[in-house]
């Protein structure tokens, strides 16, 4: 199609093997589920975890050199590989957290793990998209699965409402995205990333057409990462969806959407860095501030996490604003740390059950330090980390993005970022205060299942141990980020 890239004309499907495996695996599980019925749900869940693990191994076995296949539709490079591993890790964690929860809530249906894996396939495609078509198909595959999952507790009004809201607004955002893509096609005459990038580079000055297209495309993706002002769905959906789905929402799709956004901005839109820099600057600042202030008034821990995730996306966007490999690397590290912390926090939230029903108010955590000290201390460590208090990992995530921004002279953004993280510290600390100092409420039900304890302890250990050898992760993230810039 284009001769700028050395198109690999032979029909090379090797870099696609993980996605192909995953899709076939999901369909296989579907068949098993249909034949075995809902009894097999937990088996299918664990099988999915195993399948995701195999996929991860497959990715690690691939050659991570930059290559483009299928006539430019699909790209695989270090960045894609690294982000895919992150996504798979997040999917495994959220599935492991879900198994017992589904049984407890009585929504043990075998479609659940299949849908999760399917959305995973969509995310993998997003991360490897090198063409607007791949991008859109991957995005929609992911989104459709998630719409269904949000409404998975279909007998509960709030879950259905959440699913519907998410779907309607998601459709709107898809509309924006598509409109943007079509505008872009109109002005550059291509939907291939390489061709778009070349065309924009060749233009003497950027006209309004591509800018409009950029605004619409970014708006569509901003919805996925719940950046302000496209965040309105987040608190409602987080609160309404079943907890295990909320965990999934909070952990995984954002990583994929952020990865997609980065590829889009750094590769085809590289020539428009001035323009998208302004948009992302605004999104980042607004997200940080709304995330910080909005969380203060919340009483539900799920809504609290919603605002926390809005704010955290704001911090991650700072790294993109910087626009340097250093910034992109910082974003990757930030996402990784955020994902692990959030998984740990959800291990606690999923355990908030009293008298057989899930409870979600922050006040319900009162006295956790007495009834379950291990969990309380682990949660406290994770929340300290989220608040960005050294020596926990969250501090390093923040400092890396701020460093990248300061290196590029974005002082105002960095200062406001620090200020908002101080404000946000309030609601993290409030939860800790409730756990340790408030009059004890009744203890939560029963023993924590093994998977939850494992997730909680691994994430806590990671948060604490990060300081020992930060270079381990930071350096590989930097090298992954470099592949975006110098292909």
């Amino acid at each position, binding site marked *: 199609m284009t001769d700028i890239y050395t198109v690999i004309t032979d029909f090379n499907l090797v870099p696609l093997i993980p996605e192909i495996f995953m899709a076939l695996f999901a369909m296989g599980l579907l068949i098993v589920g249909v034949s075995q019925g809902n009894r097999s749900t937990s088996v299918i869940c664990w099988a999915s975890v195993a399948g995701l693990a195999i996929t991860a191994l497959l990715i690690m076995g691939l050659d991570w050199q930059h290559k483009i296949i299928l006539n430019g539709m699909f790209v695989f490079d270090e960045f894609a590989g690294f982000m895919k591993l992150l996504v798979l890790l997040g999917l495994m964690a959220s599935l492991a957290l879900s198994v017992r929860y589904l049984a407890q809530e009585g929504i043990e249906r075998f479609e659940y793990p299949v849908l999760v894996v399917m959305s995973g396939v969509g995310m993998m495609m997003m991360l490897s998209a090198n063409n607007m078509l791949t991008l859109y198909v991957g995005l929609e595959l992911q989104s459709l699965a998630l719409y269904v999952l949000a409404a998975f507790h279909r007998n509960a009004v709030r879950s259905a409402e959440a699913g519907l809201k998410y779907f309607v607004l998601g459709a709107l955002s898809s509309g924006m995205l598509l409109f943007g893509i079509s505008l872009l096609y109109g002005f550059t005459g291509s939907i291939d990333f390489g061709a778009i990038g070349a065309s924009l580079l060749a233009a003497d000055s950027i006209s309004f057409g591509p800018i*409009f297209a950029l605004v619409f495309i970014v708006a569509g993706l901003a919805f996925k990462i719940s950046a302000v*002002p496209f965040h*309105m769905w987040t608190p409602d959906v987080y609160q309404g969806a079943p907890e295990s789905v909320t965990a999934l929402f909070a952990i995984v799709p954002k990583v994929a959407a952020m990865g997609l956004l980065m590829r889009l901005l750094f590769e085809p839109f590289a020539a428009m860095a001035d323009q998208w820099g302004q948009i992302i600057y605004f999104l980042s600042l607004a997200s940080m501030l709304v995330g910080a202030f909005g969380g*203060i008034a919340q009483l539900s821990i799920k809504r609290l996490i919603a605002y926390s995730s809005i704010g955290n996306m704001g911090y991650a966007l700072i790294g993109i604003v910087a626009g340097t490999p250093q910034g992109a690397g910082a974003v990757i590290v930030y996402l990784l740390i955020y994902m692990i912390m959030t998984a740990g926090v959800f291990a606690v939230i999923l355990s908030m059950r009293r008298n057989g029903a899930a409870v979600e108010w922050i006040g319900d955590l009162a006295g956790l330090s007495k009834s379950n000290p291990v969990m309380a201390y682990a949660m406290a460590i994770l929340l300290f980390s989220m608040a960005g208090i050294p020596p926990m990992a969250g501090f390093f995530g923040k400092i890396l993005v701020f460093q990248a921004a300061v290196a590029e002279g974005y002082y105002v953004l960095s200062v406001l970022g620090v200020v908002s993280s101080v404000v946000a510290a*309030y609601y993290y600390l409030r939860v800790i205060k409730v756990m340790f100092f408030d009059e004890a409420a009744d203890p939560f039900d029963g023993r924590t299942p093994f998977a939850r304890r494992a997730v909680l302890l691994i994430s806590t250990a990671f948060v604490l141990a990060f300081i020992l050898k930060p270079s381990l992760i930071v350096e590989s993230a930097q090298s992954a980020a470099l592949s975006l810039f110098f292909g």
Partner: protein
Amino acid sequence: MELVAVFTPFIAFLVVGLFGRSIGDRGAQFITCAGVILAALASVVLFDEVILKHQAYTTLLAPWVVAGNFSVNWALRIDQLSVVMMCVINIVSACVHVYSIGYMSHDPAKRRFMAYLSLFTFAMLMLVSADNLLQLFFGWEGVGLASYLLIGFWNHKPSANAAAIKAFVVNRVGDFGLALGTMGVFLLFGTIGFDAIFEQAPTYKDAYFTILGHDFHALTVICLLLFMGAVGKSAQLGLHTWLPDAMEGPTPVSALIHAATMVTAGVFLVARFSPVFEYAPTALMVVTVFGGLTAFVAATIGMTQFDIKRVIAYSTMSQLGYMFFALGVSAYGAAMFHLVTHAFFKALLFLGAGSVIHAMSDEQDMRNMGGIFKKIPTTYALMWIGSLALAGIPPFAGYFSKDIVLEAAWADHSWFGNMAFWLGIAAAFMTAFYTWRMLLMTFHGTPRASKKVMDHVHESPPVMLVPLAVLALGAVFAGWGLHSGFVGSAHHGGVEEHGVEAVHHEMSEDHASGERGVGGHDTGDQSVTKQIAQNIEVIEHGIKAAENQIIVEAEEASYEVEAWAKENFWQKALYVLPENDTVEQAHSAPFWVKKLPLLMGVLGIALAYIAYMLLPALPGAVTRVFRPIHTLLFNKWFFDELYDALFVKPLLDMGTIFAEKGDRGTVDRFGPDGGAALSQKIARGLSRFQSGYVYQYAFTMMIALIGIVSWFVFRNGQGF
């Protein structure tokens, strides 16, 4: 050995402090007592090694701070001075530890108490064994901390907390001086290690600091700053107000910290810095004046107080004054001598008072005591020994040390030396007076306590009495046992002459006063008379025994006069310029100078006996006649009121203004509180915006989209 002597109390503190819960009260008491007793034995061994065998040395433990040309080590300087201090600290501390088992038997927090005592002992040992000013400062602050913790040990009493804070804050003033002095030393000498300072001191005797365009003699400035630290820690006039209040702590604490050891840290500091003070005559003058005035003022206050512990506290302050003017006239050995003897008899008096308080169901006011000597005879006898030693009656320890201190002051022949001598003589009279006032009010006369309390009066258990007896041994023998070593002269045969003659003289004096007492006692209480007569007999026996021993000792001493003379005893630990050697000259003081203190002591005892036994109306009448003076003394010369008006109240007012107008009114209102309120408002606004309606969400998205597009249109201003 020095490691054992210094670190066993610390180990005991750590064990009891950390694992107290699991080892229990008994275990805690055993570990701390064992630790300190072990340390005491080790320090006795050190005494033999270092002082008798003349082997001073320094043990390097670890480097501490190394920054540029500033380097400090953790090290133990084991020389004569520090070993003497270590012996005193460890022996008295061991007695107090054991005593506390009995005294604190009703207290629920025994473990904490024992741990604090051990911590204090360790800090004090670090202080005296320091080899540089920083380590000394570490110990200095450590004892301050332990003192604070122990004064406020009964933290349910507001008065105890107030006293603890007062002690800490007042000491801060002195510590500030010490810190400045340390910096001054570094500025001048370029090091804060003792050896280097002392070596270089003579070469800097003409150095000057230029401060604000004026030249100040460098060594004088440094010495005065160090002395400021000593004034705070040793409760000299000006920074003394915390010491009487510190009596809020448990009595063993008062005995250990506020009588025997911590308050003498200032004396130790000046003695340690004798090689520097010797080249700063002005500083020595200031020290003498402070010491003399303190000895006098504290004694005057002591005569009017009614709280038994406060009387002893003022007496401590007064005796510290003696030590300081001895330092001021370069009689460092005499000061150290008085320090050692005082440690024994004052700890004895305090613990004895504790025993009385214990017996009287925690009553401390002497106006509510009286007539209990028959019920607690052992305590009574031991208190007598302590009192005799304090009043300076031979052959008890205080006699030897107080005499040499006063003689040295006289031998200085300077105006301030003379002033200190006469103030000291007056104080000696008052000391004897208030000591016997205390004894008589506490033990004699008609019982003034309620019947319930009187029925409950009981002798203390052996665990309290044995430490008292050990201290009593010290109070009896420390004087003539150590006399020749601490202040004896290799050139004069002063030892024998002084000791024996004094005993003879004293014997007749005391006998006379005793007879006077018996003869003039037709109307008084028969048993009291008999008791006193018996006491006098005991004293006479003691005197005879002591006389024989002194003769024997003197004979021995003539063989080994070399080893036991002060030059050999102290070696290089104390440094006196030859022309300043007042101790040497004191041995050839005229007869009246040598006898005056004793005469004053006896007169003081006699006056007390007249006023409180023979003519009970006398004190009241004197009080009425000299009301203004009595008011002044009874209110402690109004130091507390003066400080309140001068410092405390203005500072509090200033603090209140800053707190209300500055902090709450401005900073809080517009800072944290305002910020928090604003955040809440924003948060509420945001959640109101989050209505839950899909159409509103969609509308927001569209508006945002249009907003961003418009931004580019207007801001970037490019046409289509």
